[in-house]
């Protein structure tokens, strides 16, 4: 019975098809439409609303290389958006391993948008214990961070004259694979009613849904999917404003290509994810079709 074949497709064929369903979307640069969910869009709108208010965006970069594949694209997307809109960006980290991540993310995005350190953005580096930092930012940023990551005394920075504490920060975004976002909600959120958003790994996204319901969180980006949605929103905005072409035209071809792939990072991963998910579901359905038909065949036969 040909249907019998559906029942036990050889393992190796399944593996080969799974391999292809990852390789082909990557190589063929397949661009599947990205559907944006409301929890990501609300972060985008929150940053859009800060344009021109003089308020800054605080990004807490609390992840290490092991969760970087899921979290790095989303932090860069948010930084690009703030720099595009000339909104000051404050970068901090509560984990020692977060320093490298912060330097890389701010560096690449600032080069692309021509944002100048200490004027458009400040990387304040690592400070601990996390709780004192979160509470200290409610009083005075400069007391918590006496100097920036590259040892510049914070009381000599004009930007930090204006941005003193949470009152001058429009949105705090905690990007981490740990439970740090929850602590931000409990301290900055409830104590200083500072708007807090979170960027987390897919695994810990489920734990933060309750906070979305009670809107203790302005929004949330979950896993690579969250990053892809934010990249999509930013691309749509830049296409509308035409700022993307101007910027890339002014660069060398090689830089432009490098920045374009970097802006597409999360979506580049999402495409094979979608195809591979469909492959698994297809195999499951195939198995069931084969099973039900042979089962029914045997019962009736």
């Amino acid at each position, binding site marked *: 019975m040909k249907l019998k074949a559906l029942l036990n497709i050889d393992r190796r064929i399944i593996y080969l098809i799974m391999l292809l369903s990852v390789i082909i979307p990557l190589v063929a640069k397949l661009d599947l439409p990205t559907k944006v969910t409301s929890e990501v869009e609300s972060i985008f709108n929150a940053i859009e609303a800060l344009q021109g208010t003089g308020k800054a965006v605080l990004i807490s970069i609390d992840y290490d290389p092991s969760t970087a594949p899921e979290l790095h694209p989303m932090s860069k997307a948010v930084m690009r958006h703030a720099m595009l809109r000339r909104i000051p960006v404050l970068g901090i980290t509560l984990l020692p391993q977060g320093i490298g991540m912060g330097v890389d993310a701010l560096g690449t995005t600032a080069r692309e948008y021509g944002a100048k350190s200490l004027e458009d953005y400040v990387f304040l580096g690592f400070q601990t214990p996390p709780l004192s930092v979160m509470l200290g930012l409610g009083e005075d940023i400069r007391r*918590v961070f006496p100097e920036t990551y590259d040892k510049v005394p914070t009381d000599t920075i004009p930007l930090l004259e204006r941005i003193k504490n949470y009152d001058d920060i429009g949105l705090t975004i905690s990007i981490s694979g740990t439970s740090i976002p929850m602590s931000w909600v409990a301290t900055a959120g409830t104590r200083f009613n500072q708007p807090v958003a979170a960027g987390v790994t897919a695994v810990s996204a489920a734990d933060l849904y309750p906070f979305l319901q009670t809107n203790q969180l302005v929004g949330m980006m979950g896993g690579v999917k969250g990053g892809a949605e934010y990249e999509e929103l930013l691309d749509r905005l830049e296409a509308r404003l035409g700022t993307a072409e101007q910027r890339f035209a002014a660069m060398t071809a090689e830089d432009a290509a490098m920045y374009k792939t970097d802006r597409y990072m999360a979506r580049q991963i999402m495409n094979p994810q979608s195809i591979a998910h469909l492959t698994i579901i297809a195999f499951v359905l195939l198995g069931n079709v084969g099973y039900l038909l042979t089962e029914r065949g045997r019962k009736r036969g």
Partner: protein
Amino acid sequence: MTRTLFSQQPSGGFTAQPLLWSVILVLALATPLYAEAPAATDSSAAPPASAGSAASPASPPPAAPDTSARQPALRYSSVTPEAAAPPPMPLLPPPTGILSAEDAPNDAGKAILVTWRPQSAPDDLTGYRLRAEQLKPAAGKANEEKPATPYVFEHSWPANQEEYRIVIEKLVPGVAVNVSVQAVAGDRYSEPSPVQIAVPKGNWFHTGKIPVGLALAVFIGFLLIFVQKSRSGAKLFVRKIAGLEAVEDAVGRATEMGRSILYVPGLSSISDVATIASLSILAPVARKAATYATKLIVPNRDPIVFTVAREVVKTSFNQVGRPDLYDDNSVFFITDSQFGFAAAVDGIIVRERPATNFFLGMFWAESLVMAETGAATGAIQIAGTDAVNQIPFFIVSCDYTLMGEELYAASAYLGTEPILLGTLKAQDAVKLLILGVIILGVVTSLVGSTALFDILRPPQ
């Protein structure tokens, strides 16, 4: 003479009474020893005192243990001591009210709890300013005298409550702290109120943890009752556990086909409960393998588990009277790397082609790597783990999976000691108790009280 709880077992078993007395004796000795010489142990062996605060990295912020309905105390610790800006010329009369400062309960002795209840307040009052000062003792040896640096803590409140509470941290245990309050009107300050003195000191018992102690006492009570019952031979009914037949026929299948049995006792250390349960299932499996001269392979990831597993298998072979069949290389250590171990076990599964694979114990993400390779070779696979998020992967790739508690029940069933069944009954009794507590919780929450909620609050 009623039999005492742990009376001498006829079978020459070990009596626990001397054990209990020795425990209490040592305990009585140990704690004062540690109390007298905190300085001694502080400096030499223990890491710097700040480890105390670093010990709780990104744990949820320690809400003050304040069960009263009053405004929760704002737990606030300033990061760097700074010199106090001299307050401008006082014009207002000093604030009147009750200012109390005392050692914060249930802590290591570095915090004080300050409560301020203002009574009369001038009409143009905008807030209050708290000021606490502690003269830190001169650090370092006695000879090079370092001036005592005053540590000043300041905090201001808007005048909108009739009572203010705050916990001030990062203080030095045992040194007096002077606390005073000033009334604030716009930029004018009043005279500071009379100074209150508090001395932060380490507390010896954490009152917030009493519910944990009570819960354990209840559990120990049930455990002793059922252990005593099973010791005195009372017939304790425990329903048949489906997984046990699966274990028996899986071993049977391997013996019939004359192929080997693979037994992976989990990847965790000897102190993990699932590993202990797995080792007490390994004993009967090894005995059966010995009786039918079937090859048994036991790879290990933890060196200690390896030593214990080797003892268990060697003793099982002796018990069946086949010490000659015991092959020293059948129980071995591979590597402590999670995926290095999985790669090696995959190699064994594919090359030795055992007829039966057992995966009993604690597993992480590598569970499916081994189980799916085993499924591809067509072996019968029995899995059992208390790792909740690995159970789905075992269910889809193994013939039978002992879920969570079933692993403990199977080990109690297969274990040699009859009293192990007693502990299973104790667990069931406490389970009913928990269901009762949940129902009680639902009822109280419907009525709107959070009493049960606060009792079950994890202590700081």
